[in-house]
């Protein structure tokens, strides 16, 4: 049984955390970089003050649970995971126990924060919140476990084409941007939705702050930096698509300018919700040119990320330290009022300087090509 659990932990748990390393890094950065322990305690006390407020973490944990389930679903559908189907030969109790172990480890960040909230509620003697939080965690864990059990049981499903897809395939032709964005939406829906919600909430919240106090452009620039940095995960997915899923792309005679154009177009399509939100809620006290500067700043970060990730053997995990340091450096530059256009120009030049060399010398290592 230990071998079985070892395989499941490596294929589901370790891969989940590896692919979402950037997501967790940003969560940790936001939670522990900007907030002190007294603020954490104050938030926990507020959330546990009434069972109604426990709905806030419930919603967030549901989104996280959705992310886990979509990841597990995708893993089960890959051809190399066909062997997992053999698990259905084991007793149901063993299957459920194995699925529970996986679900527990994947859901661990939510369980850890939930435990902190429960401890706060116990300390404040609010039993209704304790019961509500325990129930929410147990239900979510059970749902993830059951869905994983079902996904393992029913790996082989007949390929069906919906009427709408059939009609659109007959009448339209996809561009490369659609190749990538549709692949991402189909293969990582949980990641896509979570990142979009996080980035949109960040931008919306920062824009709202301008309604109650007088800030200059730097606050919005920092908020946008966090939102755009979260989207860097898509850059690593773009590289995976271009070099493994659709590796033929490397054989095509496309000039580097065209490849960059495809990359920008794909990122533009993916960041459309943030851009619409930013435009609609852009603070009145800021000049419209700041909006363009912030958008350019975001796209310069994407290109730098793309170029850096194309360096040999670099993945998000290998680069996480560098990304964190660059993030802090950019925050400092913004705080020192260095013009965003100047920062963007330097970042773009840095990215473009190495990009062609990095692109042609890049090779996706097998263990990353999943």
């Amino acid at each position, binding site marked *: 049984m230990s071998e079985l659990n070892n395989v499941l932990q490596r294929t589901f748990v370790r891969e989940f955390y590896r692919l979402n390393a950037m997501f967790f890094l940003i969560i940790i950065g936001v939670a522990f970089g900007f907030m002190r322990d007294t603020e954490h305690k104050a938030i926990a006390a507020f959330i546990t003050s009434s069972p109604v407020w426990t709905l806030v973490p419930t919603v967030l944990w549901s989104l996280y649970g959705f992310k886990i389930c979509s990841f597990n679903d995708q893993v089960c559908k890959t051809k190399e995971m066909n062997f997992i189907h053999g698990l259905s030969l084991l007793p149901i109790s063993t299957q459920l126990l194995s699925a529970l172990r996986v679900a527990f480890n994947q859901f661990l960040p939510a369980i850890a924060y939930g435990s902190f909230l429960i401890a706060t509620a116990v300390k404040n003697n609010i039993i209704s919140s304790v019961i509500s939080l325990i129930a929410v965690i147990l239900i979510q864990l059970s749902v993830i476990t059951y869905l994983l059990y079902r996904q393992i049981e029913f790996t082989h499903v007949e390929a069906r084409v919906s009427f709408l897809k059939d009609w659109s395939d*007959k009448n339209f032709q996809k561009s490369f941007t659609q190749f990538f964005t549709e692949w991402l939406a189909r293969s990582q829906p949980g990641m896509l939705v979570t990142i979009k919600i996080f980035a949109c909430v960040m931008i919306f919240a920062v824009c709202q702050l301008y309604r109650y106090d007088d800030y200059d452009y730097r606050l919005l620039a920092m908020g946008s930096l966090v939102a755009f940095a979260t989207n860097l995960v898509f850059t690593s997915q773009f590289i995976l698509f271009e070099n493994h899923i659709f590796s*033929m792309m490397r054989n095509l005679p496309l000039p580097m300018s065209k490849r960059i154009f495809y990359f920008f177009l794909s990122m533009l399509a993916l960041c459309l919700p943030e851009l619409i939100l930013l435009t609609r809620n852009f603070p009145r006290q800021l000049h419209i040119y700041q909006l363009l500067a912030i958008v350019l700043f975001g796209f310069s970060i994407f290109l730098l990320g793309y170029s850096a990730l194309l360096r040999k053997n670099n993945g998000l995990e290998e680069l996480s330290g560098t990304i964190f340091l660059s993030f802090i450096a950019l925050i400092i530059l913004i705080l020192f009022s260095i013009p965003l256009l100047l920062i963007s120009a330097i970042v773009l030049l840095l990215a473009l300087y190495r990009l062609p060399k990095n692109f042609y010398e890049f090779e996706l290592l097998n263990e990353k090509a999943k």
Partner: protein
Amino acid sequence: MLHIKQFSKSYQSNHILSINDLIITPGVSWLKGENGSGKTSLFKSLAGILPFQGDIILDDVSLKKEPINFRRLVNYSEAEPLFPEFLTSKDLVRFVGKTKGASVDQQDQYCHKLGVDQYFTKPCGTYSSGMLKKLSLVLGLLGNPKLIILDEPLVTLDESARGILMKLINEKLKDPSVTFLLSSHQSMDTSSLPLQNTYMIRNKSIEKL
């Protein structure tokens, strides 16, 4: 003419293949080798998909110095092609055809000859392995390439498709500057294909048989 110079391919510390100096003349060349000998790595390097040390020159165009022009001259069809499941043959053929400079007429012609037109607007996720192979061969023939690399072209193809493929190869060979590089575990039928040279990859190097 294809010239491979000081070629060396490794995966991290694992050395796969070295070719000091090799000239492959136009026509059909057959590359043999055991599983894992490095055939596909060599093919992918020639197609510009994998990086390597050294240089590859095709008709005076260097892969390292003129990567875009070189890629215009080289087409590659994989041994076990895999495409994103939601894409149709139409999406792939039109996109690759446009970048390779193939006219829509040429695209439709190859699709018709290999029978890809029958499932042209169906997503790849619904294809059999033979259908995927045919699509991969169509993509490998598009445009006006001077080097066409077909990795295991006969695998999963039915008898009639094999015959059609041989005809298409012979059609392309009417241009005397075209080189075909094939790998196959099955023996080649030399009566339908003018085999020029046979190479064997073993002990991390290549030799002419």
